């Protein structure tokens, strides 16, 4: 099977997943939104009634007027349509990024869900790419080092660190970092929103200072596990025959490790890079809210605390989309780097 066909199959697979997940999400969402909309309608009708009263134009039969207005708004919000019609309506809206508006403004005065997401995503990426680049560099360096001296003190210390860190909630560690470096020593600001009065270099320095704690949190919690996995992959590769052959040829050890072994270990490492990028997005969503970093995580926190159903739906969809995109890229990278992998080849593995 050629690479082109492989690509098409992976893409189709992802599209099917996206469609089904969105459909399930929409059918759940319609239920949640219904209660929400009914409350909104009652509030709107009450507000209208009061303003009419103030103008001295109180309707003659308030109950009939109320029922008529409520019916009008129910039509407006499509609440009179059957359940499945609404599900497909939301399904189409979601697929076309038409998420609607929030009840209360988020990030200043913004009420449009799509605009809020457009503001939040770059901020999240800014935090994560920085953290992940540091994690990957540290992970590969330390992992390779540990694989070179299996059983040494350094190797064992790394394993213990990976073990301990994997059971710590990242967001809790962030709270501890805040407690120590922001409250106790006062070295870093506790809020992530940059000072609007600064410009130029001072502004960039300000942002860097505010990024330090969140980035440090993510790096410290994740790099151990990373280094440990790289170590295991490298140990596997170092036992292969071609490494022995390279050594026997007299290739210098540095070149054996970085030129031969690391290159052979590349496919799983690349997949891991992408998959861990995606996985960290979940854990880091919560970490963000600890530092009030105004990205996706913060928006999630706000959406849940203030019960913004439209926002939760939009966030979930974008997250699923990002995740699936990542999965495809990981698959493609693997297929590109390791020609042994083909669709269906897993049957014989």
């Amino acid at each position, binding site marked *: 099977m050629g690479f082109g066909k492989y690509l098409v199959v992976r893409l189709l697979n992802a599209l099917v997943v996206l469609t089904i997940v969105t459909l399930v999400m929409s059918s759940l969402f319609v239920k949640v939104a219904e209660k929400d909309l009914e409350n909104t309608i009652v509030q709107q009708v009450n507000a209208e009634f009061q303003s009419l009263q103030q103008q001295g134009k109180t309707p003659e039969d308030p109950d009939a007027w109320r029922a008529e207005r409520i019916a009008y708004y129910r039509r407006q919000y499509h609440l009179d349509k059957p359940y499945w019609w609404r599900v497909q309506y939301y399904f189409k809206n979601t697929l076309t990024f038409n998420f609607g508006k929030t009840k209360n403004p988020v990030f200043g005065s913004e009420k449009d869900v799509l605009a809020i997401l457009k503001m939040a995503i770059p901020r999240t990426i800014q935090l994560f790419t920085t953290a992940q680049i540091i994690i990957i560099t540290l992970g590969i360096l330390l992992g390779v080092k540990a694989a070179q001296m299996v059983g040494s003190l350094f190797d064992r210390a790394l394993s213990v660190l990976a073990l*301990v860190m994997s059971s710590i909630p990242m967001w809790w560690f962030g709270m501890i970092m805040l407690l120590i470096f922001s409250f106790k020593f006062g070295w870093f600001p506790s809020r992530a929103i940059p000072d609007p009065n600064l410009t130029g270099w001072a502004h960039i320095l300000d942002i860097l200072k505010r990024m330090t704690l969140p980035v440090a949190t993510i790096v410290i919690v994740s790099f151990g596990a990373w280094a440990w996995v790289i170590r295991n992959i490298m140990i596997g590769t170092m036992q292969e025959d071609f490494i022995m052959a390279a050594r026997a040829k007299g290739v210098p050890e540095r070149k054996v490790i970085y030129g031969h072994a690391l290159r052979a270990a590349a496919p799983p490492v690349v997949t891991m890079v992408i998959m861990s990028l995606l996985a960290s997005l979940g854990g880091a969503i919560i970490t963000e809210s600890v530092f009030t970093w105004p990205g996706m995580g913060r928006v999630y926190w706000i959406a849940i605390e203030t019960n913004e159903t439209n926002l939760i739906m939009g966030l979930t969809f974008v997250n699923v989309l990002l995740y699936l995109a990542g999965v495809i890229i990981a698959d493609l990278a693997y297929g590109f780097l390791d020609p042994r992998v083909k669709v269906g080849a897993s049957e014989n593995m």
Partner: protein
Amino acid sequence: MRWVDFKESLSSFWSDFRRQKSGLLGLLLLFLFIFTAATAPMITSPDIPEKWQGFWLDNPKNVPPIWINAFSSQTMASHLIIEGENLQKLITKTDSGYLIEAEYNNEYDVPPQDIVIKDLSGKTTGGKPSITVIVKRPDGKEVTLIKNYKFSGSLVLQLGTHPQVRDNLLKWIKSEGIYIDPLQEFQYRTLMDAAKVIFGQLNENILDNPDSLKGTYKFTILVNVPEGSSVSFDNAKVIFTGRAYGWLGTDFKGRDLLAGIIWGSRVSLVIGISVAIVSVLIGIFYGVTSAYLGGWSDELMMRFQEFMASIPSLPILILMGAYFGGHIKLWQIVVLLAIFGWVGIARVARSMALQIKEQTYIEAARVLGASTGRIIFKHMVPQLLPYAFAQMALSVPSAVLAEASLSYLGLGDPTAVTWGQILHDAQAAGAAVNGYWWWVIPPGLAIALVGLTFVLIGTALDRVLNPRLRRL
């Protein structure tokens, strides 16, 4: 399998496992956790879950644990409640009512926050009963804090913030010849921390920055009961609200955090273990069935597995939380986490089962006419049990973390006491930026410790049961 064989394999397993030091440490921690969880109602009190959501009015808010006094230069007053028999001993009956004489030994650099006289209940038909509080300080001065304060029904008297107490204290300070800036007098009248003044050294700093006067204070509480009325002291309490409380301090509702941590261990263990067992069992059966059936069913089952694997779990769980009205019940969390938990295990179980499937004894069983179910349950799944046990232990930490994360986001079960929920409250109250370390550190440490316990057990099991891994 015969009982003798089972006993033998168990004892040989144990002799292997005994050599894993980290596994034994994990086992010890596990026993400690199970002990704590099981005895929670005995160690604390059985009504904690019902009380948990409300305010604990008798306790001080946001105060650190008592043992902090050992490390800081200033000792802080601990919490003291005089109630029940201890209080009844202090009550004497007089002609016009009752007299309570309470002694308080202030040996702290930071005196109590408040003095609260609580839950005296008066029944009135004629005149209302009234209360007078006089304090005799160690320096010999006597101050009337509140005089003839009338009450009916249940009385809650907070001396530290009561306006009449502030007035009386200001009058007393003036009569002792200390100058009070008239411009600031109004401010003192409304904002003064009266408890600090009551327990303060009498000098010109007494209003702004009083030093604690150590020694024994005698509080005389006179309750005047007119004809036809009565006062009951059955539930009465005199509380010297502390600046430190218990082993782990309190949070913004005055809740004892130690009780929260102890009760939280129940939820954490139950959810972690049940999610791990359910999802590993589903994964194993799914993988083995898929491998044994082969062909189209295998293809279909693996497509479904791939589909499940490419759904990000946390966002979907959050959406589910919103769907269940913002709060997911504990059993719902177990189901949801199990739905996303079996996926990875199914894949590995399938590839292991593919090897087992080719063994001759499976072929023999098939020739003998064994049904598909019998072959899968009786001959194939038992072969995977060692792997399953190790995986169960290793899946617990992520389940515990997931539950804590959901609770932290405020989507947890509101009727249960969980560690994630304590941290959610801490985050909502800004505990980290306000320096309430006793509120932030213990729940997270507990989560990490449960995780570590099962990682230790899991890796040890893995090494014992899957000998191929031993060399690494």
